[in-house]
């Protein structure tokens, strides 16, 4: 039982990180019907932004909560700018072209970031600085909870709650839903759809950046290809939840994190990565629209 609870907590913390990345896939899909292959690489870039900012600003050598928060927000800002730039210069010019062109461009941007990353940062893994000292917060019997797990869960859930608020309760968020529903009819409302699409990329990229920093803290080995598999799993989580649905992405990601942790805990860590593909195949067979997916074009 104690072992199970331990896996449960680990799974939720992993799942909430997947959730932050899955949201970006699902929002961009909702608004452009594009699988943004570069999204996992934006997440990767965040860890390197964090790595270098922490060095330049000296936080890499003196762990502190303030330092960690500053790095978190700087990396989010940098990735927001990166996401904005990708949409503005790579995707927007192709928006009226067949969807396939956009998809291929997304793969191109992804390769550019991965290979550019290898040139700029080197292909060897780097170690993300210890911005906060790892500590055991409390222990109940054999269950051990570290401050990192609490930080990951609290930070992720706060951002998800903030995002839910933006999407469902602000004018801009409702405009995002309107644009996702129908571009032309949204523009007839006086909504500048270019701005809303930019905003969607900014938001999604900033959340992926938050995930990057949290991962950097908890699993400090970072390398320019780390976004590939992680991004894929987050994408599968989004499909599992019903791509286009933000609440779906969050639930899908939690399921993904939990099942991954359970597989590792009770079977073998060999199957850790295979699980995502197994889940993908199962969803596509059983319910291709995902848990929260609607068969119509109602998205976001």
């Amino acid at each position: 039982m104690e072992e199970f609870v331990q896996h449960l907590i680990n799974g939720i913390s992993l799942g909430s990180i997947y959730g932050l990345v899955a949201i970006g896939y699902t929002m961009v899909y909702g608004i452009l019907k594009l699988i943004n292959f570069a999204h996992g690489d934006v997440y990767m870039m965040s860890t390197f932004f964090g790595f270098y900012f922490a060095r330049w600003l000296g936080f890499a050598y003196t762990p502190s909560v303030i330092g960690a928060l500053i790095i978190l927000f700087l990396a989010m800002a940098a990735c927001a700018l990166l996401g904005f730039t990708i949409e503005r210069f790579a995707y927007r010019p192709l928006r009226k072209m067949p969807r396939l062109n956009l998809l291929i461009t997304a793969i191109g941007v992804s390769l550019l970031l991965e290979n550019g990353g290898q040139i700029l940062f080197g292909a060897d893994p780097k170690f993300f600085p210890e911005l906060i000292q790892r500590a055991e917060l409390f222990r109940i019997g054999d269950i051990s909870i570290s401050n990192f797990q609490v930080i990951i869960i609290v930070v992720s859930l706060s951002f998800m709650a903030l995002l839910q608020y933006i999407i469902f309760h602000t004018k801009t968020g409702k405009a995002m839903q309107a644009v996702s529903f129908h571009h032309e009819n949204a523009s007839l409302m006086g909504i500048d759809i270019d701005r809303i699409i930019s905003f969607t990329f900014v938001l999604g990229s900033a959340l992926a950046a938050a995930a990057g920093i949290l991962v950097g803290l908890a699993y400090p080995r970072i390398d320019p290809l780390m976004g590939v598999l992680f991004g894929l799993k987050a994408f599968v989580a989004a499909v599992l939840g019903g791509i286009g649905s933000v609440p779906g992405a969050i639930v899908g990601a939690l399921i993904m994190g939990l099942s991954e942790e359970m597989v590792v805990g009770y079977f073998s860590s060999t199957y850790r990565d295979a699980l995502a593909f197994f889940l993908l195949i199962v969803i596509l067979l059983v319910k291709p629209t995902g848990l929260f997916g609607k068969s119509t074009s109602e998205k976001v």
Partner: protein
Amino acid sequence: MNGDALLKLDHITVAYGAIKALKDISLSVNEGEIVTLIGANGAGKSTTLRTISGLLKPQEGKVYFKGHDISGKKPHVIVQQGISQAPEGRGIFANLSTEDNLEMGAYSRKDKESIQRDKEHVFHIFPILQERRKQEAGTLSGGEQQMLTISRALMARPKLLLLDEPSLGLAPQIIKQIFKVIQEINQQGTTILLVEQNANMALHIAHKAYVLETGKIVLQGKAQDLLNNPDVKKAYLGE
């Protein structure tokens, strides 16, 4: 040129790829009028409205609003300048509530209080929408959706309201109600360009009318005159 027309289309040609949907169209709408554009399915009525709203760019010709060239401006800019459209097929945001749809209609406006007043005004015009306020718009009936579409376009406080086939797919009783409201909206000062296949209803409330056939204007004049025109009677009024 007619200097005081609120809206003027000047020799507009619009094409989808190689196919010309509008050929050298000119028309004008004066302030305070209801002008109707009638024609069979596929004549180019929606294309005309989509061009005015900036969803399509004319290949040739210009669109003037209050004397300024607006052809080629983006749709949201055209809304800000005072033209809003209730598109064909209603185009409601099915996943948003009725109230949020109305809020989207007022997207480019800032003043919360006057938006609230206008919302109450459309609830006064269509009380059923007030009852459906919190309901997802996709669950509304066809007639209610059409009321919402018109109301939503009104929320932009347009000088010129474009209506694309508001009678489409509705029961006669509801059509009557909607046309009465269109007349009232006009009497309260909004200029209207009304596209219809239901020529009979449209000609009865309009001041001026244009008849569109395969992308060309073939007839124009006072709505009253067109009602009595034998060709129109035969082709569009089923007499």
